[in-house]
């Protein structure tokens, strides 16, 4: 792209980095404010017997098993946290479609792993003139929806809630081995061909847009996910046959693995949509929530692979 046309106003490449670097004064006040109003809100919820989103979040904080971090992306993104809730949706991404399906299911509290307003930290200051933003906000207000993001601490939960769900969806818990670092996930599976592995994954995770690098006939047994970035993948690659990535720029892992193959190494790559790599973790989240939230229905609503590939 022509750099001249692009403004450098927008955001940041890596999210973990992002949260630490971009906690604005406004967000900080919001966090501080939420702890100030926490006590009365809790009392209100208890006295009326009507559950609020804020009360659910306080139970999540008590049950997640790790100290609450600041700064964090895990915060209310829109809606009144003290409004009584009718039901809870867990989802990977609070897309407009997921919000509509939540309303249809009778749930007005949406717990989303990823952003609502299309940037790592849900920065909305640049969206004031955006008609789509206003349409989505109007829908949320009209239906009394509350959206809360649950990203950092669900990953920080032990086991990582996202990978616990993914392992369950794949039936791979039994194959997990300890990884090279806390962010890597490695598996030793019964030996198969690269193509068979890809087909199995496509079926189990409902993948529509799988992209592959490597010989379909390659015999494989060691599979690993190291993170979104090539630096993380490089640490893992000597120990695996198949690298699994999602939400990764094309010039990183795909180009690396194609060069590795050209250099004579027996490697392969499966690149999935971000949803297929992580949304089973929000199904896991629904199961976990039900162990300490019993007053309202809780449902996982998949946002699904956003892409399809034409034949």
């Amino acid at each position, binding site marked *: *792209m*022509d*750099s*001249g*046309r*692009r*403004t*450098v*106003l*927008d*955001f*940041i*490449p890596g*999210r973990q*980095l992002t949260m630490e670097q971009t906690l604005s004064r406004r967000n900080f006040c919001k966090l501080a404010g939420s702890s100030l109003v926490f006590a009365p809100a809790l009392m209100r919820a208890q006295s009326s017997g009507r559950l609020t989103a804020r009360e659910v979040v306080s139970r999540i904080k008590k049950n997640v098993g790790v100290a609450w971090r600041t700064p964090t992306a895990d915060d209310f993104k829109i809606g009144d946290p003290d409004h009584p809730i009718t039901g809870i949706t867990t989802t990977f*991404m609070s*897309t*407009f479609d997921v919000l*509509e399906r939540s309303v249809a299911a009778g749930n007005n509290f949406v717990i989303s792993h*990823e952003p609502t307003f*299309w*940037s*790592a930290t849900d920065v909305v200051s640049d969206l004031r003139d955006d008609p*789509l933003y206003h*349409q989505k906000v109007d829908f949320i207000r009209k239906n009394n929806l509350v959206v809360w993001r649950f990203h950092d601490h669900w990953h920080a939960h032990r086991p990582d809630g996202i990978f616990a769900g993914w392992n369950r969806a794949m039936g791979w818990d039994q194959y997990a081995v300890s990884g090279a670092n806390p962010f890597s996930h490695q598996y030793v599976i019964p030996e198969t061909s690269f*193509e068979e592995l890809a*087909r199995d994954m*496509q079926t189990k995770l409902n993948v529509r847009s*799988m*992209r*592959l*690098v490597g010989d379909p006939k390659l015999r494989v047994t060691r599979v690993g996910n190291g993170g*979104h*970035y*090539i*630096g993380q993948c*490089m*640490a893992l690659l*000597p120990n695996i046959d198949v690298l699994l990535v999602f*939400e*990764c*720029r*094309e*010039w*990183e892992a*795909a*180009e690396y*693995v*194609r*060069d590795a193959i*050209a*250099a004579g*190494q027996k490697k392969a790559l499966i690149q999935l*949509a*971000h949803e297929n790599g992580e949304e089973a973790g929000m199904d896991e989240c629904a199961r976990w929530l039900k162990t300490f939230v019993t007053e309202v229905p809780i449902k996982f609503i998949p946002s699904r692979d*956003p*892409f399809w*590939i*034409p*034949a």
Partner: protein
Amino acid sequence: MITAQQLLERMQKNVGVPWQSQRPDGYSDGILQGSPDTEVKGVATTFTPTLEVLRRAVSSGKNAIICRESPFYSRGERAPLFYRNGPAPSKDVLEKDSVVRAKQDFISQNNIVILRLTENWDARPTDGQLQGLARALGWEKFHSPSNAYPQAYDPRNIYFQLPKTDLGTLARDSKRRMKINAVRVVGDPEAPVGKVALVHGLLLVAEVERILKEPRVDTVVAGDAVEWEAAPYFQDLVTAKRASGLILLGEEASEEPGSGEVAAWLKTFLSELPVEWIPAGEPFWTLSQVGS
């Protein structure tokens, strides 16, 4: 005889815009690999200097590679934010990596010089990347005329009025024309398509907002999109019935035809050297290619 440095200077003289200099640590335009004193035997242009592209260049006697991406899988520590680059691997990690070492060895053993030409190429009044992509799609005849810009392929003149079709047909047709596989689509295959915005490389939300200010645009064809930014933004546009769809061709697929334009441009002032466009080809294959 011409050296890599002289080749670079000739490019600077002919690019037609003031050359923007290299940033200290970033992969900005200029010599990324090899010595400026290296004698250039021939020039290959490509989107990204894969090991395979380097081998093909060497086997046809060419040792200068002019490309948009870097050889080592990153746009550098100081890549601008809008590149959406991940954190670059540390020098230490790179030096120990077996693939990086193999590629580095091949580069030095064959006296290869890798020159990056991206920002300065993009600063030209005619967008060579856009023009190359429009040609590859067979869309030149559909380019919306605009009197607002002096050049037909002004970087802002990205609109094409296609004969009425639907999203599924357009996606299949684009895939066939570009001879690629991993085309990803957001939207209903039956959704109507007429006026399309064409964007090479990465699509950002701010750009989609600008595009939709143009009247009657229903579809965007681009290279890639970040999956928590422009991709869900487009899903929401579709749900909100504000657009028909998004077709993502891939980074390489959307930028590679522009490397053909770079080769054509080089030939206008490099008559003493062989110049060849060596496409890297898309990195991916898909399961539908191998049948079931």
